[in-house]
């Protein structure tokens, strides 16, 4: 019954990827920008959660909320300062700026607190384990899955049932037409960044809870993998990012279980390249015809 165990681990890892991937996919859907700094927002979220729990003795859920709020503000600042001017420039310029912002966040954090890692306190959540079909399941994994599902349901609600969600869908469909219909495009884009970054912040706290060790460069690899998850599911499509995240998490855990743990990162990139070559629009994407 080791397989069920591995699948559970994969789902926990996958929910972290899925939460980060949602931010990538929403931002890409609305302004067609790969927000490389998203992985670093995730890192900041993890550190905010860490300081809230160890420094201020907050509980897990207040720390989660605080980290989500800080990340939402950070996301909006990044958008307003760096990306807003680039809306009409070339894609290469936008991509390079995103890389620049990512490096800036990483090294400003290293500059102020050093590159040494930090260990998340254990036992912030009750850690019991119980047997299910012969597999030992940690209650932490269940909490992680539960938090992820709640956040995803909330996101679906915001996107499909609220006014700002409707505006977001309209802007991602056609920015100019949305503006002509009286939608405030700037506010909508900022809201998208805020929501995406808040999800990344939550993922950061969950990551700390699950993996204990956090450091200022931790955002790079999960960020890239979340991007792969977003591409896998079809970039710009919200359910796609969730499914892509879970698939990627499970694949990685299975590759490790076969004893190739040092090839885990390569597996993710191989998935990326295969999907880009054979189905660039992703699992849920529709093929779009190239227009002149």
């Amino acid at each position, binding site marked *: 019954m080791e397989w069920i165990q591995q699948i559970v681990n994969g789902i926990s890892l996958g929910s972290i990827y899925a939460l980060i991937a949602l931010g990538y996919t929403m931002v890409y859907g609305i302004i067609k920008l790969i927000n490389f700094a998203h992985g670093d927002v995730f890192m900041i979220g993890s550190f905010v959660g860490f300081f809230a729990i160890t420094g201020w003795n907050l509980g897990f859920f207040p720390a989660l909320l605080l980290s989500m709020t800080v990340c939402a503000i950070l996301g909006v600042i990044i958008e307003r300062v760096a990306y807003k001017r680039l809306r009409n420039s070339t894609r290469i310029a936008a991509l390079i700026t995103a890389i620049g912002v990512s490096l*800036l966040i990483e090294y400003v954090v290293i500059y102020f607190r050093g590159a040494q890692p930090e260990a998340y306190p254990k036992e912030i959540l009750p850690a019991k384990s119980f047997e299910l079909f012969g597999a030992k399941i940690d209650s932490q994994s269940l909490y992680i899955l539960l938090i992820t599902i709640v956040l995803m349901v909330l996101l679906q609600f915001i996107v499909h049932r609220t006014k700002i969600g409707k505006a977001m869908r309209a802007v991602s469909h056609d920015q100019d037409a949305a503006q002509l219909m009286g939608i405030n495009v700037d506010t909508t884009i900022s809201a998208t960044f805020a929501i995406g970054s808040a999800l990344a912040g939550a993922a950061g706290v969950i990551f700390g809870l699950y993996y204990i060790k956090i450091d200022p460069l931790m955002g790079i690899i999960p960020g890239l993998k979340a991007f*792969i998850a977003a591409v896998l599911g079809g970039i710009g499509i919200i359910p796609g990012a969730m499914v892509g995240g879970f698939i990627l998490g499970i694949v990685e855990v299975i590759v490790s279980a076969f004893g190739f743990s040092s090839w885990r990162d390569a597996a993710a990139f191989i998935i*990326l390249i295969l999907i880009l070559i054979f189905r660039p629009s992703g699992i849920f994407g529709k093929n779009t015809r190239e227009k002149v």
Partner: protein
Amino acid sequence: MKKSKSFFLMFGLAVVIYAVIQFLLYNGILNPFYENTLITILINIMLAVSLHLVIGITGQFSIGHAGFLAIGAYIAAIFTMKLQMPFIVALIAAGLAAAIAGLIVGIPSLRLRGDYLAIATLGFAEIIRIVFLNWDFVGGARGMMITRMTDWTIAFICTILTILVIANFTNSRHGRACISIREDEIAADAMGINTTYYKVIAFVLGSFFAGIAGGLYSHNFYIIQPGNFGFLKSFDILIFVVLGGLGSMSGAVISAILLTIISTFLQEYSETRMIIYSLVLIIVMLYRPQGLMGTKEITQLFQKKKSFKGGKQYGHFES
């Protein structure tokens, strides 16, 4: 006639630079530290110019150049250290191996465009790095010990060759086809240019010179480790090209020289260096997205404005 005149002018300039620096090194006015810095500058120029061919001329946004650097570095090291071949043979093998890798990576990924191509090249570079990390023959994560063989002369010759080949390629029929792909791929396709062919050619040529630079790079240090070739290295090379101006070879050369000197002085403050790098990158992109030189070459700055016969040599971005 005019072209060959400027060619000999540049060639003469290169010989003079070489002679002066060789004289200074020979007399001990420049100590080995400076020689090392000079070699690093030359290697960075080679990397910048080879990436300039891919990004600046052909307009294909590749952020995985460090992968080809890694292949060149490791293949050259295997040839000299394990097979006891001469250094020149190792350099050529490094270039060829990187070119073959460029072909293998380029054919599938160059079908993609823009952001997707960038991510795919990044993915390939990471896969290359992970392969070296898991290959015990070359030492895995511990790295590989290497005798220092790169000297100033061979680095200079390789750099001049790189610049010469890529400059001539750019001004040839093939180069013009590549520029047309950069300006508008669909229009180039419609004009009967085999876009995939030219994109792959530019990519392979860029990889070839990155491979040779890798051979020089690995023999300039005493040890190489897969960690030296992560995506931060790719971004370093990218910054040279972007800062110099997408489409300007002299811009790439100038920014490679300047940034190498700056980062040598800031070596002890690596965080400060990265903060400055990233701020420069953001500010340049926000206020001067075409880079310092745009698509102009430095020789064009000294020419008076006159109407070019048969159109300008380089296209101009109108953004």
